[in-house]
C-alpha cells in the first residue's frame, strides 16, 4: 500500500523520472497546450486581482503592513507554525518508527488509526478539543474527584497548536514511514558489521537517511499550519487566515489583500525551501525496489511505554474528537433552532464535491500530460503556475475571487460556479499530481507501439495512455472529492446564500453555540471521508 499517494505529488520524496524520454508526437501538442493555457489563466486571474488589490491600497497598504497589529499577526502565524511543526515532528517520528519497524503489538491497527486523524478536518478537531479540554469539559469532570472544578481555557495559542499538531502529524508519519521501509537493509547491516551498536546505527545511519523525508513532512506540516483556517478560527487565535477572514467579511478588501499577499509570500518561501531540500535529497540512496524484509526491532522493556505512547497519540488524534461527537449525538434531542435536514446537507455536500472533483480532474489531465512530456520552457511554466494552489491558502483564494467578482462579475458572486472555481484553484495540484505520477509510470514505448500499429496520436492517448493511467486519475478524483468536502473558508465565503454543507453547518452550529447540532454533520463528514480514503488506498493496492 502506497500511503504516500494521498499527498500532493510535489511533496513526495524520492520521485524519479523515467530515463527514457516521452516525446511529443506531432498532433496533440497544440490542443493540450491550448487547454492548459486556459486552465492556468483561470487560476491566475484571481491571483492577479489580489495583487491589484494590494497595490491599489498604495501608501495606506504600506502603513497597514507596518502596523503593530499586522506585525503581531505575522509573529502569531510564525510562532504557531514553528511550535506545531516541532510538536508534530516529535509525535510523528517515533510513531512512524514504532508502527513500521518495531515489534509493537497490533502495529498495523495503530498505524491505520493514527493516519485516520487526517480525515478529521481541523475545525472539527478544534471544536471537540475546546469541548473536551475546556474549563468545564470532559477532562475537568474526570479530574473533579481530585478537586479540580475549573480548568484554564485552551482557546488561543495552546489550543491552536495542540489541534494542528494532532491534525498534521500524519504528514510527518507518511514520508518518514516510506523512507523507513525503503531503507537499504544492507546499509544498516554494514553499520553493525563495522562495530556500531543499535543506537549508533539508528543515529548514524537510519536517521541521516530519513532527512529528506523528514524535511518534506515538516515543511508540509508548516505549510498546512500557515494555510489552515479552521483551527485558528475556532480557537480564536489571531493568525493570518483568521485576520484575512475578518477583513474579508467586513469588505475591507485592501487590507485583506495586503495580508493575503504577505501570507502567499510566506508560503512561497516555504515551498521554495522545500524544492531546494528536495533536490538535495536525491543524493541519498533510497531503496532499489525488491529489497529483503527489513529486520524488526525488538522493543523489550520499552514495549509497554511505546504502546502507551501510540495509544495516547490515537486518543488525541481520533478518539477524543469521536467521543465528543458521540456525546453530542446523545444530547441531540435538544431542539435545533435552525433545523436543516441531514438529507439536504448530504445532497449539497456530495453534489458540490462530485462536480468539483470532475471539473478539476478534467482540467488536470492536459496539464499532467504537459508535465510528463514538458518539451519547452513554456510548457514547464504552465505546469508550475497550475500548481499555484499549493501556495494559495483557501482563505486567500476566496478573498481573491470575491475581489474579482465584485469588480467585474457581480452576477457570479455567491454562485455555485464561482465556488467550484475556488475549489478548482485550490485542489488542482492534487489532481495534476496524481495524474502526473500515473502517467509517469507508463512506458512511453506503449504509445509508440500504438502509433506504429496505425493509431493516430489522439487515438493512442485515448486507447492506451488514459486507460493505463485510470487508477491514478481516479485516485486524484477521490482525493479532490475528499478535500472539497472538508473545505471550510472557500465554502464559507463563496457559497450561495442558504447553500449549506457539512462544513458550513458545523461552523454555524459552533458559532451559535448549538454544539449538539455539530454531531450529525460531523460524524457524517468523518464517515464519508474515511470511506473515500479507504477506496483510494484499495485502488492503489489493486492497481497494476
Amino acid at each position, binding site marked *: 500500500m502506497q500511503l504516500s499517494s494521498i499527498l500532493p505529488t510535489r511533496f513526495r520524496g524520492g520521485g524519479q523520472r523515467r530515463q527514457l524520454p516521452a*516525446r511529443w*508526437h*506531432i*498532433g496533440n501538442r497544440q490542443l493540450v497546450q491550448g487547454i492548459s493555457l486556459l486552465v492556468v489563466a483561470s487560476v491566475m486571474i484571481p491571483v492577479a486581482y489580489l495583487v491589484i488589490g494590494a497595490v491599489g491600497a498604495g501608501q495606506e497598504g504600506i502603513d497597514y503592513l507596518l502596523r503593530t497589529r499586522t506585525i503581531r499577526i505575522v509573529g502569531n502565524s510564525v510562532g504557531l507554525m514553528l511550535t506545531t511543526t516541532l510538536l508534530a515532528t516529535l509525535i510523528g517520528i517515533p510513531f512512524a518508527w514504532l508502527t513500521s519497524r518495531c515489534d509493537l503489538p497490533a502495529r498495523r491497527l495503530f498505524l491505520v488509526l493514527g493516519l485516520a486523524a487526517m480525515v478529521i478536518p481541523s475545525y472539527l478537531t478544534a471544536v471537540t478539543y475546546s469541548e473536551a479540554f475546556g474549563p468545564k469539559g470532559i477532562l475537568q469532570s474526570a479530574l473533579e474527584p481530585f478537586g479540580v472544578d475549573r480548568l484554564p481555557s485552551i482557546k488561543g495559542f495552546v489550543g491552536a497548536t495542540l489541534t494542528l499538531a494532532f491534525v498534521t502529524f500524519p504528514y510527518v508519519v507518511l514520508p518518514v514511514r516510506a523512507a523507513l521501509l525503503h531503507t537499504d537493509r544492507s546499509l544498516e547491516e554494514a553499520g553493525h558489521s563495522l562495530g556500531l551498536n543499535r543506537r549508533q546505527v539508528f543515529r548514524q545511519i537510519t536517521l541521516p537517511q530519513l532527512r529528506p523525508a523528514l524535511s518534506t513532512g515538516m515543511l508540509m506540516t508548516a505549510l498546512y499550519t500557515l494555510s489552515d483556517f479552521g483551527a485558528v478560527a475556532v480557537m480564536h487565535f489571531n493568525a493570518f487566515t483568521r485576520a484575512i477572514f475578518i477583513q474579508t467579511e467586513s469588505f475591507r478588501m485592501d487590507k485583506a489583500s495586503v495580508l493575503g499577499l504577505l501570507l502567499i509570500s510566506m508560503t512561497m518561501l516555504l515551498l521554495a525551501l522545500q524544492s531546494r531540500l528536495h533536490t538535495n535529497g536525491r543524493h541519498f540512496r533510497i531503496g532499489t525496489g525488491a529489497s529483503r524484509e527489513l529486520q524488526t526491532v525488538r522493543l523489550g522493556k520499552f514495549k509497554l511505554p511505546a504502546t502507551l505512547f501510540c495509544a495516547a497519540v490515537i486518543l488525541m488524534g481520533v478518539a477524543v474528537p469521536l467521543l465528543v461527537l458521540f456525546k453530542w449525538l446523545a444530547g441531540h434531542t435538544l431542539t435545533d433552532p435552525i433545523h436543516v435536514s441531514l438529507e439536504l446537507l448530504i445532497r449539497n455536500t456530495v453534489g458540490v464535491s462530485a462536480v468539483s472533483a470532475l471539473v478539476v480532474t478534467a482540467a488536470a489531465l492536459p496539464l499532467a500530460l504537459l508535465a510528463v512530456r514538458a518539451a519547452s520552457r513554456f510548457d514547464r511554466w504552465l505546469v508550475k503556475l497550475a500548481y499555484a494552489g499549493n501556495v494559495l491558502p483557501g482563505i486567500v483564494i476566496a478573498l481573491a475571487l470575491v475581489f474579482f467578482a465584485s469588480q467585474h462579475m457581480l452576477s457570479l458572486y455567491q454562485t455555485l460556479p464561482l465556488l467550484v472555481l475556488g475549489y478548482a484553484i485550490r485542489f488542482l495540484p492534487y489532481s495534476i499530481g496524481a495524474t502526473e505520477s500515473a502517467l509517469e509510470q507508463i*512506458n512511453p*514505448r*506503449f504509445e*509508440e*507501439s*500504438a*502509433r*506504429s*500499429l*496505425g*493509431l*493516430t*496520436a489522439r487515438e493512442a492517448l485515448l486507447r*492506451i495512455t488514459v*486507460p*493505463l493511467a485510470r487508477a491514478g486519475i481516479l485516485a486524484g478524483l477521490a482525493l479532490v472529492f475528499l478535500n472539497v468536502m472538508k473545505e471550510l473558508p472557500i465554502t464559507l465565503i463563496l457559497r450561495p446564500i442558504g447553500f449549506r454543507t457539512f462544513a458550513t453547518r458545523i461552523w454555524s452550529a459552533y458559532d451559535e453555540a448549538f454544539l449538539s447540532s455539530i454531531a450529525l454533520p460531523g460524524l457524517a463528514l468523518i464517515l464519508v471521508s474515511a470511506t473515500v480514503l479507504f477506496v483510494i488506498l484499495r485502488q492503489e493496492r489493486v492497481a*497494476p
Partner: protein
Amino acid sequence: MEYSLQADHLTKRFNGQSPAVNDITLRVRPSEFLTLLGPSGGGKTTTLRLLAGFERPTSGRIQISNRIVADDTRFTPPERRKVGMVFQDFALFPHVDVAGNIAFGLRGARADSQRRVKQLLSLVGLSQFAERMPHELSGGQQQRVALARALAPEPDILLLDEPFSNLDTGLRAQVRADVRNILRSTETTAVFVTHDQQEALSLSDEIAVIFDGRLVQVATPHAIYNRPATVQVAKFIGEANFLPAEAHGMTANSRLGEVKLFHPKTGPVQLMIRPEALAVEFNDRGTPAVVRWREFYGHYQRLGLALADGVELVARANVDRYFQRGNQVRVTLALPALAYDPASDDTLS
C-alpha cells in the same frame, strides 16, 4: 524500385548538439535482414526511430517501398508508414490480453482479424496463450507476442530495437533462432539494432556498422569479420592482434617473418591477425614463442603467447592439443593478413 527501404543522407541533431545520426545512407532489399551494429549510444536506435517516424530527421530522405515518408518538406507520421516495431522492453499493452495485443493494429472485419490473430499465434507457437495477460507470460513468450503484434498488419518493414537484450542468456540463443526462422518464413524485410556483435554476425544478411552516428561499413557478416574496413571495426567485431610490419606488394615483413597479405600494400603498415589465423605447434617451423596463459572454453582454447622480443599475441587453438603455461611453441600465420595504415587508429595497442 528494387529496395524495400532507402535512406539517403539521414542526419538527426537534437537541440544543437553534435549530430546523433550523421549522414547515414542505407539500402535494404525485400526480405533482407539488415543489422545496425555499433557501441551503445552510437546513434543506432535514433536511426531506427527516424525510420519508424518517432523522430523527424534534421535532413535527409527516407523512402519505404516507393513511398517517400520523410524529406525536407514531407513527413509521414508513424501510423501511416506501414512499419512494424519491436521494442527492447517489448512494450506489450498491459491492459490488453495476448490476442488483443496482436489484433491491435488490425483494421476491418472482426472475423478477418480474428483469423489473422489465430494465424499469427500459431506462427509464433503461442496458440494456447491467446487469453493470457502479458504479465502472465515469460520473457521469451512476451518477445514472440511483440513480434506477432508487429507482424499482424503486414508491415512493409519490421524494425527491431535490441529485442533480445532483456532475455536471460540461456533463453537468448533459442529465441534468436525462433525469431530468425519466423522472419524468414514470412519473408519479412527487417532492420535490427544491436550492440552485440555475436548476435549481428549470426543473424544478419548484412551488417551496417555505426560509430558515433556515422556509417563505417556495410557488408555481409563474413566480409565484416574477415575484411573489416577500419582498425576500429576490426576491434569491435571479434578479437584481433595487431603487429607492425613493412609491406612490399602482396607480402610483408613482420615479427612472424614473411607473411602473405590480402591486399597489395607498400611501406609501414599494421597487420590485423585474428586469433584463429595463428597456428600454434610444438614443431620447429615458425616463430618461437612461450605460452604465457591459457583459457579453456571446451570447444576451443585461448592462448596468450609471448614472442622473443616480448610482443604478446592471442591465439585460438583446437582442443586436441594440450598446452600449458611455459610451453615453448612455434607460431605461424595460416591465413593472409590484412594490412592497415599505421596511423589509421591512434588507439593502437
